[in-house]
């Protein structure tokens, strides 16, 4: 081999990308990892916010995987560019607002840009034919290679022997026989390979790594677009959709109600940008009001905030309401009974 070849591996933090990178490293390839932050990543966020999840390890799994592999990881903020993937996916959505195929095309394309800038030779992903229902269907793997522009510089080491040889295989940078032929939804081959390498503590996200695959999250994003009259978002919008109970009692505003101490503390970071309310006569959550409310709406919001306070069964609760201008006004209200909060208010 006349040159020490270099590959950039898309590292999600899950098992497949960990193994894919390792299989390529075993062939003497210099591998560095790349991880894209879209704003929709499940990774860490809700666990970091919610106090009840504090027993879980507070680590970014992509960083952890890179350390297990002994490689560098480059974290790339793609929040702005990714909006077009979410808002106008060419290949449409999956079961919810998950644009999985467009997402993969986009990320491999960004990895290609990075590869060309840094003088790397090819791209590695942990894709497995048939593992996922949309982006990893056999018919869609060539779509990712073609539309990303990576073509035969995209190597899927875990299922490579089920696919046509790529450039690194044809050129002898990689021995095809040492790549794998995984296929289908079973996780057993990956778990066996992990055991072979001695990887024991790896992330196994139950609901995938992206909030857009979550039905309830997608409903909240749809509501955001519908009420604003445009399909757009800022980072704060999509972060807040991950936190608290969201109730829309009328078209003009919704309430974000902290569910526990960790969420209340997180919401505090936003309180100067929203009308916010907090019970002062009883313990209770911080509530943000997103939108515009008239006097009647504010009173309704205060009654809902009172419903989620410790005074929910009392005759009156006093709620301190602070406007965006900092003006403070107290509302002493009767908590809205649960029976008067219709299920459709919950997003």
């Amino acid at each position, binding site marked *: 081999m006349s040159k020490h070849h270099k590959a950039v591996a898309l590292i999600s933090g899950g098992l497949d990308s960990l193994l894919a990178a390792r299989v390529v490293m075993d062939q003497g390839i210099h591998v560095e990892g790349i991880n894209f932050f879209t704003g929709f990543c499940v990774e860490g966020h809700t666990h970091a916010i919610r106090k009840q999840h504090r027993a879980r390890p507070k680590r970014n799994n992509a960083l952890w995987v890179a350390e297990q592999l002994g490689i560098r*990881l480059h974290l790339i903020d793609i929040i702005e560019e990714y909006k077009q993937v979410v808002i106008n996916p060419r290949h449409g959505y999956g079961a919810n607002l998950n644009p999985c195929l467009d997402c993969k095309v986009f990320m491999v394309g960004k990895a290609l840009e990075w590869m060309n800038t840094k003088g790397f030779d090819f791209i590695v992903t942990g894709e497995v034919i048939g593992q996922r229902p949309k982006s990893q269907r056999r018919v869609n793997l060539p779509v990712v290679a073609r539309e990303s522009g990576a073509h035969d510089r995209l190597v899927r080491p875990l299922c490579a022997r089920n696919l046509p040889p790529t450039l690194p295989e044809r050129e002898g940078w990689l021995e095809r026989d040492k790549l794998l032929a995984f296929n289908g939804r079973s996780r057993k081959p990956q778990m066996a390979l992990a055991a072979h390498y001695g990887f024991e503590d790896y992330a196994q996200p139950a609901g995938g790594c992206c909030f857009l695959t979550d039905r309830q999250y997608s409903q909240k994003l749809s509501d955001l677009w519908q009420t604003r009259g445009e399909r757009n978002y800022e980072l704060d919008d999509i972060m807040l959709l991950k936190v608290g109970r969201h109730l829309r009692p009328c078209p003009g505003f919704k309430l974000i109600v902290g569910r526990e101490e960790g969420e209340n503390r997180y919401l505090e970071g936003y309180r100067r940008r929203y009308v916010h309310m907090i019970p002062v006569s009883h313990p209770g959550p911080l509530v943000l009001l997103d939108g515009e409310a008239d006097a009647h709406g504010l009173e309704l919001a205060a009654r809902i905030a009172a419903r989620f306070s410790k005074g929910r069964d009392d005759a009156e609760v006093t709620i301190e309401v602070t406007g965006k201008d900092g003006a403070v006004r107290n509302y002493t209200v009767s908590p809205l009974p649960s029976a008067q909060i219709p299920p459709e208010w919950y997003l």
Partner: protein
Amino acid sequence: MNSVTVDARYLLCPLPVIRTQDQVARLHPGDFVRVLCTDPGVLHDIPSWCRMHGHTVADTSVADDEIAITIQVGDRG
């Protein structure tokens, strides 16, 4: 030798790491970056990122819910 502060309070990981990474890329070996955070995940993630990129965590302090991590930029070459 430069010393700069990155305010990553109320950002959740990996954003504090990304903001740190972007700041470090503009500095030189020996410079210092002080990162202010509220996400406890940084206590793992920033040292992890530093180890793999050859930077040094010079100091870590936690007061109430605020975390300050000081990094000395290493020789990336």
